[in-house]
């Protein structure tokens, strides 16, 4: 299943394409003008965009040029679909940066064939999907979620867990690994490739470990963070980033690049207050944020509806307090591997299915 953005000012055409693509099992995002299309391409992170050329205001060519110029959408598969079907139009579409071109009226079978080819080609050239596991509040189980989620996702495809914690993070510890190589070597200017830094876990998961000591020197720049994540994404289907709990420009760049953001929240008043404030600050990322409630204690928990009312958004998953987690941490035996039937793993499986798609069931 792919996420397809359709940008066309013709309502009939939007509706026709929506029905056609939904029948194929794709998720469809509709946009009736170029400006809105550009916004949705960034906020909704589609796999493919179908763009009409002749639209009032911003033409389809302009939309394609701007999509290509934006690092967040530069690799998006784009098809131009237009009533202008002359060779010069085809040339203009390809020059603007479109991957494919079709003239209206289109035959459904032909259109679907083009889309499939484009999606296939796109998936070959595109990199893996980056997911950020994030919270501004410490001690809420962000690393536990990141580690176990990554372990579950590795069953669906090659997965890398990137521990970008600045304060000697615990992903390696949770996995029972003693890393000698870590991303700190890049900061030290050592001549080492990102590939060399990836540590294989016996489960098949790859780990980019954090330095063993808190980082005191300057961290990566925004562009360096982006380059690092793009390299990781080029080699794995899924990249789970245990994201540092700050909102610096570098961390925002991680969130920019993320296909999805799992915002981990406690269900106690301080936890909810932090999450509410985070959501307020990350307004532009809201469509990609999934709130995950991680119960930190066995105390009684407020009902889900009440939490959703407070946060004013749906909650993607509620991870119950799991007493098995404490001994699992002590033994460096993540629950996804050692006790896959526990409630924590069951809840995370739902998140993994959300990432992979319904076929994962």
């Amino acid at each position: 299943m792919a996420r397809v953005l359709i940008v066309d000012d013709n309502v009939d055409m939007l509706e026709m394409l929506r029905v056609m693509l939904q029948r194929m099992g794709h998720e469809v995002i509709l946009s009736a003008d170029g400006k809105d299309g550009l916004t949705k391409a960034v906020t909704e992170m589609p796999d493919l965009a179908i763009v009409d050329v002749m639209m009032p205001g911003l033409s389809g060519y302009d939309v394609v040029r701007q999509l290509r110029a934006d690092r967040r959408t530069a690799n998006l598969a784009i098809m131009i679909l237009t009533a202008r079907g002359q060779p010069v139009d085809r040339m203009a579409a390809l020059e603007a940066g479109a991957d494919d071109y079709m003239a209206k009226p289109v035959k459904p079978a032909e259109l679907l064939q083009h889309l499939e080819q484009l999606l296939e080609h796109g998936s070959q050239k595109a990199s893996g999907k980056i997911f950020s596991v994030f919270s501004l509040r410490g001690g809420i189980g962000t690393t536990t979620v990141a580690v176990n989620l990554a372990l579950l996702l590795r069953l669906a495809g090659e997965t890398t867990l990137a521990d970008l914690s600045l304060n000697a993070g615990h992903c390696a510890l949770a996995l029972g690994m003693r890393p000698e190589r870590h991303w700190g070597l890049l900061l030290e200017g050592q001549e080492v490739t990102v590939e060399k830094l990836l540590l294989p876990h016996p489960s098949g998961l790859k780990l980019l470990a954090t330095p063993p000591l808190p980082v005191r020197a300057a961290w990566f720049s925004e562009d360096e963070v982006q380059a690092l994540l793009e390299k990781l994404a080029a080699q794995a289907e899924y990249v789970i980033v245990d994201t540092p709990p700050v909102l610096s420009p570098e961390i925002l760049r991680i969130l920019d690049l993320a296909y999805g953001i799992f915002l981990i929240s406690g269900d106690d008043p301080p936890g909810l207050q932090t999450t509410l404030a985070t959501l307020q600050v990350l307004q532009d990322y809201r469509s990609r944020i999934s709130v995950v409630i991680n119960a930190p204690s066995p105390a009684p928990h407020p009902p889900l509806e009440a939490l959703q009312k407070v946060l004013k958004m749906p909650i993607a998953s509620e991870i119950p307090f799991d007493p098995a987690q404490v001994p699992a941490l002590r033994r460096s035996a993540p629950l996804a591997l050692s006790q896959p039937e526990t409630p924590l793993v069951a809840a995370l499986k739902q998140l993994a299915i959300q990432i992979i798609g319904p076929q994962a069931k």
Partner: protein
Amino acid sequence: MADKAVTTNWVSAEFFAGGYRISGMYDARHRLLGDIIYDKSVSLVLVNEVYISPIGRPAEIGTHYTNAACIKANLHFLLTLEEDDALRRDQRYGNYKLMQLVPVVITVPFFEITGAIRIIGRFELVPFLSLQTESYITLANVTARSAVHPDVSFHGGGAIVNRNQIISFGLNQQP
């Protein structure tokens, strides 16, 4: 789902006149495009979602109008994707057993148009040009090459050429 082109009663057409390419959608629910063009009592053709480009930069979208009227007498020719869309009702549905397609080359301002005219019986160039009372000629399988930029050409299943804009008319004899 049937493998049928997604068509409505909207005809996508390209109008060429005075060094401009005018792309638009003609609403054929009431009258066929061919009927409107050939109708001597009508001087305009109304088009929707109109985009205008200069012939020198034909892919560049210059101006956009939601609705526009093209003055028929000033049009040099128009192109349609399907041949049927350039035909009058009688041309479209008539049963012409002796119909033949004669390849021709027509020169109009800014363009050299190659295509085929639909003729019943024997084709005679001079009578065809001098005796016919219609103001337009319909062509099939059309390529219109720009005289300004010979590497730029436009293709269509059909075309309607304004006789009054024709500079030269030749038979396209294949060697």
